[in-house]
């Protein structure tokens, strides 16, 4: 299961931060997930409680911010959403772009003490 492995990566990242910053209790974890990353937020929410059960993160709340998959057209500079526009630039009609955002998978912040 993809999301289970990913939650283990999240937990690892959070535990590293706790150690670095001498934190004892985490209340909330906020992630940023890009539309074009391989992570599916609803699956993540679903398997999160099971994955952290019995660990230091057992009672944490998981929040996910979705980042749009945006591109900048190399012909005309228009910035547009790749999924909504089916990758084609809405202003000049070409499929030639640089990715601006959407592949993120970040730990944005945590609430902890």
């Amino acid at each position, binding site marked *: 299961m993809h999301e289970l*492995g*990913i939650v283990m*990566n999240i937990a690892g*990242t959070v535990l590293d931060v706790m150690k670095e910053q001498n934190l004892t209790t985490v209340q909330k974890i906020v*992630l940023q997930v890009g539309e074009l990353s391989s992570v599916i937020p609803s699956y993540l929410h679903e398997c999160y409680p099971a994955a952290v059960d019995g660990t230091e993160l057992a009672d944490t709340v998981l929040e996910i911010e979705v980042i749009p998959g945006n591109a900048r057209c190399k012909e005309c500079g228009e910035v547009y959403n790749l999924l909504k526009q089916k990758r084609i630039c809405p202003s000049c009609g070409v499929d030639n772009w640089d990715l601006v955002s959407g592949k993120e998978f970040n*730990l*944005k*912040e945590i609430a902890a003490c």
Partner: protein
Amino acid sequence: MDEFKVIEIKKSIFEGNDRKAEELREDLKKRGVFLMNLMSSPGSGKTTTVMRTIEALKDDFRIGVMEADIDSDVDAKTVSTSGAKVIQLHTGGMCHLDATMTEQGLTSLGTEDLDFVVLENIGNLICTADFDTGSAMNTMILSVPEGDDKPLKYPNMFAMVDVLIINKMDAAEFFDFDLEAVKERVFKLNPDIKVFPVSAKTGEGISEWTMYLKNEVKNWKEI
């Protein structure tokens, strides 16, 4: 009760794995072990291509194979008939391998007496692309029956691999497979990619692939 404060972190979740992978790659480089991460959809011909590759290079290198199929050890049994050193990785239902799992696999394989190790990754084109395994080369197999539009559907994978092997070319005419269209789509996503059309069944194109691979392994061991 203590007040919770919000702490901004902005750290990639993949960063831990990326760091681990980099360490593993450096360690393998020092020890002269070339690791190839082989990815594809299920049934594209990974095992058949690995058999052909071993056959071509077994006099040049000492070869090991790690099979990461989810449930069975059928592929490991097949590959072990080639004379290469083979292990089956138990992935516990995961759909990708990360650097830690790869390192554990390498430890149980034992790499002291090996020059070249193939990791037959789990058959999945989506998330295997996100996890650096520590390999020296990322290779993907696309097979003709999967269709020439795959690069449009899985751009992440095509953008990250070093080599694309297009397998089952013997069946191209039955599937209206347009090789030039695939190349065009792939080069657009990844201008540096090397593309090798082959048939693991007939052996067509295999020597171009293995000659290239042989050079890459040699360079890795020498420089």
